């Protein structure tokens, strides 16, 4: 909580804030980073193996092999999420399993499975992108701004 907000609180609440931040369990940042590094790196290593496989056996180039790799990884994520394994990996790895595209897949797929009971249209269809939606929204919006600026610079800026 920011300092401005703290000043407006009654004294008891301020005391409680201080107490709470003293008692809060310190996160083992270094340990978490190492775990994230190992698991995230391992997922990218698997991705690299799949990419190499597509390049050698299906005539993809290095530029285009990213797409089938993503699809394959998300397929594997579906299996791992469905059997409840991905959650375990996530608890261990933190960002290591959330940042790769498999984390994006897991967010979509687990939301779809979880909201199944609410029906096919409003449950699966409506809740699927509850967590992953902002990623797409702001990804597209920021990509639009970046591409717009770049296009204008190239067309009329003479770069």
């Amino acid at each position, binding site marked *: 909580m920011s300092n401005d907000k703290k000043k407006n609180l009654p004294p008891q609440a301020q005391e409680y804030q201080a107490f709470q931040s003293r008692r809060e369990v310190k*996160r083992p*940042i270094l340990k978490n*980073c190492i775990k*994230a*590094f*190992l698991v*995230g*790196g391992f*997922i*990218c*290593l698997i991705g*690299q193996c*799949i*990419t190499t496989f597509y390049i050698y056996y299906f005539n993809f180039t290095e*530029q285009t092999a*990213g*797409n*089938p*790799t*993503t*699809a394959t990884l*998300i397929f594997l*994520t*579906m299996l791992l999420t469905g059997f*409840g394994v991905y959650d375990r990996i996530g608890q261990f*790895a*933190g*960002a*290591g399993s*959330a*940042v*790769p*595209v498999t*984390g*994006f*897949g897991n967010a*979509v*797929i687990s939301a*779809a*499975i*979880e909201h*199944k*009971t609410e029906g096919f249209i409003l449950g*699966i269809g409506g809740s*699927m992108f509850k967590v992953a939606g*902002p*990623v*797409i929204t*702001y*990804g*597209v919006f*920021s*990509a*639009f701004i*970046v*591409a*717009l*600026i*770049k*296009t204008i610079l190239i067309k009329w800026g003479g770069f």
Partner: protein
Amino acid sequence: MIFFWAFVIGGLICVIGQIMFDVFKLSPAHTLTTLVVAGAILDGLGLYEPLIDFAGAGATVPITSFGNSLVHGAMQEAEKHGLIGVITGMFEVTSSGISAAIIFGVIGALIFKPKG
């Protein structure tokens, strides 16, 4: 060698995400959104493509590449059709991530039962 760099670079991007979790106390959705926007900006500056050449899947598997390929698709179309291409080409390159997530999401929901 590309396998080694894929591991290292992919791992490092995840460490950045972990630092955003732990040090800045951002939620996963905030972290992923920030990383996607960062990927888009990096590609706008022309820095992401060399990273892909260098690290292969280490750069294409993390979510940052999603922002990168959005900009890439938009720029490809923009070269052909001008400004309107920025909108029409947005999903040209990155279609597989989103379509795979939707397709396998629905299939997964049909096959598996929710736990707990």
